[in-house]
């Protein structure tokens, strides 16, 4: 008699186990039918867990040699088409993000859009479409000298970064947009910039003005991007005269 509760418990447990096994079976069957390969699962988990977009080579570094990351990414992207979460390629990396049309129900996470001044917005656009470009080139297009704060701000918010130096007299620093910029605006690359192809076709982005044309700009010489090559032998003339007489 004393073992009755135990028996009951055991029966209950057995039933539960059976049920669970059946569920597991169903799941397993479904899983098999889904035909998800291990690479796809791994990439899914890696991208899901990463706070930043990961590039194909980052994934390759994790998953080892000889893994076809590209096709797995393509399958994964296809799998998420139409779902509430999307797989997006941006700025050379891949990340999951919520579908655009669902933004309204996610209102509570929404941040205030960053307000950029007109000068900053134009500067950003010029750098984005003309990069790499120098401060002087930005000024040439805008027709005014660029206040120091504008570039600083764009670099502060990490949408713009200094690039290589131009191999031209004075070796001016060039500026570029960052991957963060691409990622923020959901651009997969610079070719995706709105209207880029049209602007290129119109010659707006590539054409250089002939030298004979220059709208005069008095401030041009004041803020000069050109670097002065420091000359260690440069001596101050008046000092020299004094030295000479001492």
């Amino acid at each position, binding site marked *: 008699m004393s073992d009755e509760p135990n028996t009951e418990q055991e029966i209950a447990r057995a039933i539960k186990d059976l049920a669970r096994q059946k569920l597991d079976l169903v799941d397993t069957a479904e899983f098999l039918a889904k035909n998800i390969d291990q690479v796809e699962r791994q990439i899914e988990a890696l991208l899901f*867990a990463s706070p930043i977009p990961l590039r194909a080579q980052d994934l390759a570094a994790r998953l080892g040699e000889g893994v076809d990351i590209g096709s797995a990414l393509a399958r994964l992207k296809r799998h998420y088409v139409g779902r509430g979460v999307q797989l997006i390629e941006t700025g050379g990396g891949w990340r999951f993000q919520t579908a655009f049309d669902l933004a309204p129900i996610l209102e509570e996470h929404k941040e205030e859009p960053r307000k950029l001044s007109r000068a900053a917005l134009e500067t950003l656009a010029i750098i984005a*479409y003309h990069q790499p470009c120098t401060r002087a080139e930005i000024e040439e297009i805008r027709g*005014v000298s660029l206040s120091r704060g504008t570039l600083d701000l764009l670099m502060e918010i990490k949408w713009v970064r200094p690039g290589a130096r131009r191999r031209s007299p004075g070796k001016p620093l060039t500026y570029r947009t960052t991957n963060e910029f691409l990622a923020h605006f959901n651009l997969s690359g610079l070719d995706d910039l709105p209207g880029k192809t049209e602007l290129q076709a119109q010659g*707006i982005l590539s*054409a250089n003005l002939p030298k004979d044309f220059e709208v005069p700009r008095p401030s041009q010489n004041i803020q000069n991007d050109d670097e002065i090559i420091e000359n260690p032998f440069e001596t101050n003339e008046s000092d020299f005269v004094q030295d000479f007489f001492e």
Partner: protein
Amino acid sequence: MKQSAPDQANLFEGEYDNKAFIVELDEYGGPLHILLNLAREQKVDLARISILKLAEQYLVFINKAKRENIELASDYLVMAAWLAYLKSRLLLPKRENKEDEVSPEILSSHLAWRLKRLDSMRKAGEKIYELPQMRIDSFARGINDELAPEVLSIYEADIIDLLRAYGRQRNKVKAKIHKVAQWPVYSLEDARAALKHKVPRDDKWRDLGEFAPKKYEFKGEIPSAKSQYASLLSAGLEMVKQGEINLRQLEIYDKVYLQKNLKPKS
């Protein structure tokens, strides 16, 4: 930006007070922007705008601003002068092209092209802002308690961090150099000023040493006698060149004497 773009047309009609006007100018940056807004008022393809009309409008704009006693940046005035020149060239009957002069038609087509480029960049900036943005139109994963794969590098630093670190160091060094740099010398400028002040009225020869400053005239450390003498001599030679005084030394190692030059070269 999109919504806050000021209405340049109104501004141009003169419905502004001085303050707002200046603010708008800041917002717009400069003459090319003003021109662009004037060009837009013509409501035609930017490539086909009438540069002549544009030049006229800009000149009116400048005159109006002048009447309102608004301080205009030199950029605005230079642009006005340039446009006035271009306008006159466009209006004058065509003459034989001198080799070194660009035809006004080319100049104005280039100006139109530049306006178009600025306009497309301005529009492009707005279009970028219309793109779906993260944390506004789309959201990344909310929970961040999981392992964060960081494959790029463990240590983060960008070039700006690096440059700032460098600047911090070198700016500090600068202060050090400043302290060391205070070398007690009697500067050429001081000697020049002192000598000018003390040039005698008569033409008697005087020992150059007499013109050295008194000890109390120095604020800090007193420069060496050599330094004082050297600077006085340099300043003196300069004044000789200008015909104000004469200097002479009768023999090597002798003193140098100074005399006012009463017959300056005409």
